[in-house]
């Protein structure tokens, strides 16, 4: 809880592309967990809010050497020092990296909707509310109180389910603890993954599974050359995926 920079916690994620079956459960679980709005037509993908977006990659080979893979892309909570690409451009301090956790947050009620952060992010991880979020009447009952629904004209993005961290801390406080144990705080996408392809935890804790996997020789990050230092790692044993991911543009 202290404000100094050596909190020893940097939450991060590892996604095993080889294990990912492309089922999209993470994306659905995320939408439900975070009151992500939807419209009747969501096929204009550059105006569709999907915190956890899934890309289809392929090896570019002809049939039958063709192979595809799915790559789930959330906000990568860039660890670039001193700032991720998106936060320092915000004119109103609506987005900010919590240096106690490494999580990049975005507070829609502060956001004025200038979309500078959207432009600065190379991962398309940030989304603008082009319309007033609206739910069919009965579905308003399934909105979760843990995440505040947004309004038109603001940016939103993956928070790594930071509300789960808040609630996990509440539970810990009841037991008089201020430190969390591994697994007490896990985002909805990781929890949902039926193939257990996603691992979440503290990258600075050498004993954590996520730290171990992030150091694997199979690990890579997206657009590594840009120096954004994402805290979401991917694993794959496929050369073509490594080659593809190593590219910029």
């Amino acid at each position, binding site marked *: 809880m202290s404000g100094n920079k050596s909190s020893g916690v940097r939450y991060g994620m590892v996604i095993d592309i080889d294990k990912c079956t*492309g089922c999209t459960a993470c994306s659905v679980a995320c939408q439900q967990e975070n009151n992500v709005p939807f419209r009747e037509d*969501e096929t204009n993908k550059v105006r569709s809010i999907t915190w956890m977006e899934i890309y289809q990659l392929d090896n570019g080979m002809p*049939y*039958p050497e063709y192979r595809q893979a799915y790559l789930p892309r959330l906000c990568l909570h860039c660890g670039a020092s001193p700032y991720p690409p998106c936060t320092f451009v915000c004119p109103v301090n609506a987005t900010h990296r919590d240096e106690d956790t490494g999580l990049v947050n975005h507070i829609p009620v502060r956001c004025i909707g200038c979309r500078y952060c959207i432009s600065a992010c190379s991962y398309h991880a940030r989304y603008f509310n082009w319309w007033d979020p609206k739910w*069919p009447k009965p579905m308003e009952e*399934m909105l979760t*109180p843990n995440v505040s629904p947004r309004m038109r004209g603001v940016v939103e993005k993956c928070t790594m389910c930071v509300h789960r961290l808040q609630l996990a801390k509440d539970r810990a406080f009841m037991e008089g603890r201020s430190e969390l144990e591994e697994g007490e705080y896990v985002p909805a996408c990781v929890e949902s993954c039926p*193939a257990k392809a996603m691992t979440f935890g503290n990258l600075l804790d050498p004993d954590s599974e996520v730290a171990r996997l992030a150091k694997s020789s199979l690990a890579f990050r997206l657009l590594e050359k840009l120096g954004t230092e994402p805290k979401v790692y991917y694993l794959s044993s496929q050369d073509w995926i490594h080659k593809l991911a190593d590219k910029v543009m």
Partner: protein
Amino acid sequence: MKGKDLMKLDRRAFVKLIAGGVGGTLLSPLPWKMADDTAIWSQNWFWRPSPERGGATTASTVCQLCPGGCGVRVRLIEEKNAVNIDGNPTHPVNQGGICPLGAAGLQYLYGPSRIETPLQQTGKRGDLETMKAIGWDEALEILSIKLRRMRQKARGLVCVSGKREGTVPELFARFLHAYGSPNYMVMPAAVDAESLGLFVSQGNSGAIGYDLENAKMVVSFGSDYIEGWGSPNRMMMAFADWRSNSKRDRTKIIQVATRGSLSASKADEWVAVAPGTEAALALGLAQVIVSEGRYDRTFVNNHTYGFDEFKRLLRQNYTPEKVAEITGVVKEKIVGLAREFAGTKPAVALSGWGQGRMQGSMYDFLAVQSLNALVGSLHKPGGVTRRPKLPLAPWPKVVLDATSLTSENEPRLDGSRGSQFPLPGQLFYNFVKNVNEGNLYPAEMLWVYEANPAHDLADVQPFLAALNKIGTVVSFSSFMDETTQLADLVLPGPTYLERLEDIPTPPGLQYPVFGLSHPILSPRFETRHPGDVLIALAHSLDGSVGASFPWSDYETALKERVKGLADAGRGQVADEPGLQPWKGGQGRQLAPNYDSFDDLWEKLIEHGCWFDTSEAMPSWASAFKTPSGKFEFYSQKMRQVGIRGNDITYLPHFEQVEPAGDPRDYPLLLMPYETMAITNGPVANPPFMTKTLFDFQLKGNDSFVEVNPNTAANMGLKEGDRIALQTERGTLKVRVHLTEAARPDVVFIPTGLGHSGFDSYIKGKGVNANMILVAQQDQVTGLVTWWVTRVKISKV
């Protein structure tokens, strides 16, 4: 002059008044508070819904959106608003994982197309304007009177259930039995071919179970093993397991399929075969294994029947050269694959095309099973076995009166067990055919439960035609789906989150699981549990029907069966995370963790499921109930039931199904494909899932077909072009997505889209492939395949 001065004075004074006013206003809170408050207003404006707050609780139950049988947890606010569904970590089938459909479950509970009261069609069928809301008493009365009136034509009552197992389908079957109709049917699926195959080769009725978690090599013949085949979450978990194993003993996956799906891409090897020839490849492997003597001699010599005939057939028709010709797979690959399959222990071959919704051919199933038999993988760890039965207590025997007794000998409207198709199959397509052709006797009334055949049935048009010849259609659906739109009477059931129901062992599992779903919140509408409706209906009828339902309500009936579990003295309620019943093999005794029926029931409600590992896989000596007591390559059962033909008829073989349509008119082939991102009913894709579709799958209201870039180039088609897809059945307008996943000259169309029912978030999105697919019937079993149809493409 003076007036002008005054005017000037006035003007200046006015300016000063205003200046004072501005000054005063700026020194008052008004502008600053207004600026702040309007900003706050914009953060909470009234048209932005603010979620209900309160204490959160979690209820565990079992998902019923597909037969997968996964445990789910529902988060409730103030025990009133369900706000989240995730996987139940204590449920052994999914271990906390959840598929997209399950995760979107609340969009069904709160779906705008929920049916709130019973409905009666007062006008023309299909006209939603004339669907009148009626009370339950009236609805039951209407149905009860109809049933009483048609009792003499009792056999004309047909029920089709989308759910195959569990007490509710059993109650439907029981009702028909007691009422006097042999026509309880289920929606077609690959399980139909499986159970016939098990019946003719092993003499068992029942279902198949794969010990996949312990296999070292898996060869999937067309099964999209991570895209919805079997119990989807269990398969994805197994897949992750195969991938986690260290490099040395990692499970090898081979996908034999025509399309470069995710299952193909994620396999260690993808063997691309010509459309519909997976079984031929299986027989090709068998030939190599047999001719090279790589088969399991202990099993083949001691526990099989008809091996020599099989061997002869293989040598004649399925040499690598011949199979290479049929499948398009090179000879060396066939030989290599066969050697690897025979050399890896344990290895298992999977069958059931795509997600397993197509019945498929029994012979294809037998071809794949013969491979499992040859390498000794039947009823062995890491192989294929039969799915253990649940020790549920039986209900009392159905009471039969004169009417229902005569119906015992009535032919079924689907012709199953009849002279043409003597095997005990589920032949819904044949039912459709018979109704359309006016064969046997008329179908007076159709009940539809947990099924949406008007959309989901491949080659749906004959069914829609048949509906016109059926007197009354009754739907038990919770949603305004396509079939319900065509119903005359709707008796809406509660959704799975609002009802008590059992979910028996999911398909393909090697150990028994009994899941129990229960209402996690009070029903949102005036719906009634179909079980309760059936019991009430039975009680309203005279004679034996009421007597066959000696329960006050569904709960009592269900509990009566569950008592069997409590009495079995084995198995446990799954109440801790990380249970892995497949580890350590089957046959490990599990002492119950409950001490009475009431305790068991309470724990089932709390945790969701019971499972067991006590039952060992049957020994080879005891496993087969065939006339020979062995696994029969050459089926004597088929002979017994009266199937006539030559030797080949009784042996696993490959029959090339000629796709419907003249190749001169329809030069390309059309194959449907399924994905996890589009559900294939009976419910339609929820908005959450539709959102995850790529814009090359759905764009606006247009859906896409996959075409190989070379094929497209030959026809002058570019990415995104609009085309008409024409088969013998009709034409659909779609757009083109170019991908190397598509085999040249084959067009792949996704199923599950193109709804016309439900709500504005669902209907009108894409086209329903089922409208133009042509189902083809096997003349021995009556089962159908619809994987390939000839098609013509024209640009529009």
